[in-house]
């Protein structure tokens, strides 16, 4: 996998300007220039999360809160209440685990205008191990009323999500993958809450991807094509609200689907898609993601293999659901 290059420079990740976290840091500066009310709060991770760019550009609007994530989100709530648009930034694992209560009651419950980036999501983080690999953040954040949740598929998607988030009143949680992702969208790409996009048309099975997994779904679709299976790939960056119409439209044409998320399948994106499919067009659906396991230290490629989240795993799941599909015939050779 292309992500391997993160492992080459574990000490100086700055050498990789195209990582999504870099795009995040730069987009934040762009938005900061445009929106003077944006303030950024850090919990001692600014060079990892890349909010260091904002710190350098707008030192008066950057606040170091120290290693105190509960206070990080509480103070963000207070800043929102005085008219600012705060971006309290830390690793996703600390967002959804350490500060879940503060985010729920101080931010989501009163519907405050706080934009929460979750850095280092899922498997491709560093080699820090299970304590730092956020796999439950989608489930936790989407369970909170008022909270919107998004997982971008590439850097342009991320920038579009951030812009839309700033223009949308209320709390938003969005995920930032640490690694470089292949470009999926053209310049000028727009993001809208509750709108997915078909990134590859097909007729035999739908691969529903969110975040970085959509690009793996595209690679799975290539593998399936070699076996004359036509896979549709639907990218759903907006996990909440989710594009129920598009999900139903696609699966009613293909008759079966696979979901793929860079997170635990419990309560996450796959469950969100399942909720739509179960109520509108019940059909076989398999969920690719972390299957109730902790994600320990390891090389990125190895971790994707270990957790059965490689393109080949997605393709295999697709063939399984095609076999389960009724009343259609199996398309595979």
């Amino acid at each position, binding site marked *: 996998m292309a992500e391997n290059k993160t492992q080459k420079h574990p000490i100086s990740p700055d050498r990789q300007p195209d990582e999504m976290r870099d795009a995040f840091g730069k987009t934040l500066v762009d938005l900061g220039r445009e929106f003077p009310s944006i*303030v950024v709060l850090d919990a001692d991770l600014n060079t990892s999360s890349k909010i260091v760019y904002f710190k350098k550009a707008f030192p008066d609007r950057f606040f170091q809160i120290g290693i105190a994530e509960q206070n990080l989100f509480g103070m963000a*709530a*207070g*800043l929102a209440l005085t008219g600012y648009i705060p971006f309290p930034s830390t690793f996703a694992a600390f967002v959804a685990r350490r500060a879940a209560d503060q985010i729920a009651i101080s931010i989501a419950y009163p519907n405050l205008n706080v934009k929460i980036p979750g850095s280092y999501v899922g498997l491709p983080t560093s080699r820090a191990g299970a304590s730092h690999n956020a796999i439950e953040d989608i489930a936790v954040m989407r369970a909170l009323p008022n909270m919107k949740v998004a997982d971008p598929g590439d850097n342009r998607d991320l920038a579009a999500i951030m812009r839309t988030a700033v223009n949308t009143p209320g709390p938003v949680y969005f995920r930032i993958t640490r690694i470089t992702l292949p470009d999926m969208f053209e310049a000028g790409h727009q993001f809208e809450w509750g709108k997915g996009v078909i990134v590859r048309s097909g007729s035999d099975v739908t691969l529903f991807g969110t975040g970085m997994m959509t690009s793996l779904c595209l690679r799975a679709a290539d593998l399936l094509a070699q076996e004359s299976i036509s896979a549709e790939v639907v990218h759903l960056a907006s996990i909440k609200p989710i594009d129920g119409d598009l999900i139903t439209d696609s699966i009613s044409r293909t008759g079966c689907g696979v979901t793929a998320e860079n997170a635990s399948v419990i309560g996450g994106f796959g469950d969100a898609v399942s909720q739509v499919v179960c109520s509108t067009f019940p059909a076989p659906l398999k969920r690719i993601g972390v299957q109730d396991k902790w994600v320990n230290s390891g090389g990125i490629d190895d971790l994707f293999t270990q957790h059965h989240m490689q393109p080949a795993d997605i393709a295999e799941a697709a063939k399984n659901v095609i076999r389960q599909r009724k009343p259609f015939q199996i398309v595979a050779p």
Partner: protein
Amino acid sequence: MNPKLSSDDLLNLEEMAYQIRRLSVEMICYGQWGHIGGSFSMAEILSVLYFQALSIDPKRPKWENRDRLVLSKAHGSPALYATLALKGFIAIDDLYTYCEPGGLEGHTDMTHTPGLETSGGPLGMGLSVAAGMALGLKLRENARARVFCLMGDGEIQEGNVWEAAMSAAHYHLDNLIGILDYNKVMAKGRVSDLMQIEPVAEKWQAFGWEVIEIDGHDIEEIAQAIYEARWIRPHGSPIIIIAHTVKGRGVERAEFNYQWHTHAPDPQTADQMLKELAITYKRPVQGYSRINEPVKKETFYGGE
């Protein structure tokens, strides 16, 4: 801005503290849920804040230059709702919707009630939000507005409080005034028995705060402390007023009694409490005003 209260002021503030207690009993009885002990212990503090100290306008609850009160001990909501009603943010009749569907929320919900600055319930969170507000006001160079954060004593067992305390001192938030309702009792017993928080003043000092200690039921002392915190003490550090209070102050059976931390009186008990309050505060004896109205639920709540 003179902290010296006239005798009329004093009478008015005492009256408001009495009314806060009276209405709290009625709300908690009517809603069949609520915290009498923690509402009573901060009645004088709320009276002085809302009827003497805070720069607020019920007609403009979102006025930009207003002072803000964050009720971190959000279970004290009956006393705060009563105060907001007496001040004119909400109607007195609204109080009788406490804990009913569509009515006043059990713990605070700022989206639902004008005059509430935050939503709360889980303890230990309010000071962070208040510190964020104080920082935001400083950024706006709004020099006059102050942020007050009313905390419970057991609440400071939460680590989040000390994260907030540390950052408030770090950012020199001298527009932030904490008030500790030190009523000595938490939900299931005395604070000193369950988890000692002493030495309290020294803890706040060590975290870089100015400390003022007062009798939290003495209206003149409260007014003086708030005046000092607002006008004399601020020179780069946040200020905490440690208000020594009595949990359940005003009704003998509830004083220092953890069993009245969360407990809704039945109408007969509420009636006795209201009579006792009236005698203590030398007011005309009134019974529970809604005693003759049909009770909505079959049993009265006596637990958490």
